[in-house]
């Protein structure tokens, strides 16, 4: 027993080192798997306050870019209003009428970016709205120019968003040209470029084609811009295109984002899961 105590006291530095190292690694891996389990991140009240203060000092420097983005968005929205009004006129011809709950299922919440990274392998964005404003994990986030990501965890007034620049996040996408479905994922290297996969090589894809969100996801409304095709190649297996997509969102100057609250998300999800269960049986 005495020897044991002596051993521990002689090796105390190493033992302490081993314990703290294991603890850190445990934090690291459990945070990646259970984001809400650990409190140590930017949803922490004090960390958020500190970031807000430092942000309020730096935010003036990119007001010019924010203004430009908002102006672009305004013009896009005006266009959209005009288009919808036009559609309204000849609507009587078509028998189809969207259920009012489905038509208005998306609600947008504006949030301000408090903190973001673009250069790590897994990038997150901290925004200044939380569960008090009706936000919940899983909701989609877009900017005035395109897709941004999806909420990972929320506290009352702060949320963390998994940016599309994250190694484990992919978005269901389609090419506007021919409605070809694929998925978009970041390869971890260049923060302006993402990869689009699962598009058959026999379909036509050209540089500058627009890539938008597909109709097949709960998170984003369809037809939100993701980016523009930059380079087209063929994958090593010869069946799919290898497409490089230039992101529409400029993450470097991101200041305001919209969180999309899909009111029917749970309804759709449970219904689809139920259907899948039946099929298996």
């Amino acid at each position, binding site marked *: 027993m005495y020897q044991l105590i002596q051993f521990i006291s002689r090796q*105390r*530095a*190493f033992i*302490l*080192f081993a314990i*703290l*190292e294991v*603890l*850190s*690694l*445990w*934090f*690291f*891996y459990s*945070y*990646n798997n259970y984001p809400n389990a*650990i409190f*140590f*991140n*930017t949803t*922490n009240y004090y*960390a958020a306050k*500190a*970031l807000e203060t*430092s942000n309020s000092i*730096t935010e003036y420097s990119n007001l010019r870019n924010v203004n430009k983005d908002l102006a672009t968005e305004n013009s896009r929205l005006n266009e959209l209003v005009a288009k919808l009004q036009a559609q309204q006129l000849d609507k009587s011809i078509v028998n189809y009428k969207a259920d009012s709950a489905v038509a208005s299922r998306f609600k947008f919440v504006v949030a301000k970016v408090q*903190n973001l*990274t*673009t*250069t*790590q*392998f*897994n990038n*997150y964005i*901290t925004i200044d709205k939380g569960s008090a404003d009706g936000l919940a994990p899983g909701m989609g986030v877009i900017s005035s120019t395109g897709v941004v990501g999806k909420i990972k965890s929320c506290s009352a007034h702060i949320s*963390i968003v998994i940016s599309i620049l994250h*190694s484990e996040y992919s978005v269901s996408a389609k090419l506007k040209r021919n409605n070809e479905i694929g998925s978009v994922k970041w390869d*971890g*290297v*260049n*923060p302006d470029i993402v990869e689009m996969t699962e598009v058959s090589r026999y379909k036509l894809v050209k540089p500058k084609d627009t890539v938008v969100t597909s109709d097949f996801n709960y998170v984003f409304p369809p037809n939100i811009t993701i980016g523009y095709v930059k380079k087209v190649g063929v994958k090593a297996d010869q069946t799919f295109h290898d497409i490089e997509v230039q992101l529409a969102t400029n993450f470097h100057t991101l200041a305001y984002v919209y969180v999309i609250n899909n009111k029917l998300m749970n309804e759709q999800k449970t219904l689809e899961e139920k259907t899948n269960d039946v099929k298996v049986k």
Partner: protein
Amino acid sequence: MTQKNILSQVLVFGFYLLLQIFFVRQLVLFDYAFCFAYIASVTLLPFETNRVTLILLGFFAGLTVDVFYNTIGANAAAMTLIAFLRPSVISLLTPQRGYDERQTLSLSSMGLPWFVTYTAVLTVIHHFVLFLLEASDWGLFLPVLLKVICSTVFTTVVIVIIQFFRRD
């Protein structure tokens, strides 16, 4: 160590952490070179600091920075490791005539070659652990290596520059 010395050490430690969180965090060159100057908060503690204190402070500093990077655990793991290795690195780099008793761990006292080597060795270990953990994928080994090399140069230069503003 006198009480005044301890107080000034605590202030310096806090200074490096605040510097990292509010200023240096935004510094990224060419998307590859990152600055983690806060590792100086542990690597530049006085020679006589014992290993247990080093490890505890390293863990604490890493965890604090992790909170702001949303990489909980990665910086802590890297900092704990370099805090543990620090005494070995110091004895490995012993000059031919041994360390003088009056020497302090600073640029002016140790000279540029020793200081840069020492900082670069610990920095490269820290960055390697940090970026590899973050990538969690051997397929990204080359970008990781590139990031480690660029960031080590960047961090070392920044730590040396800070030394020039130091008053002993």
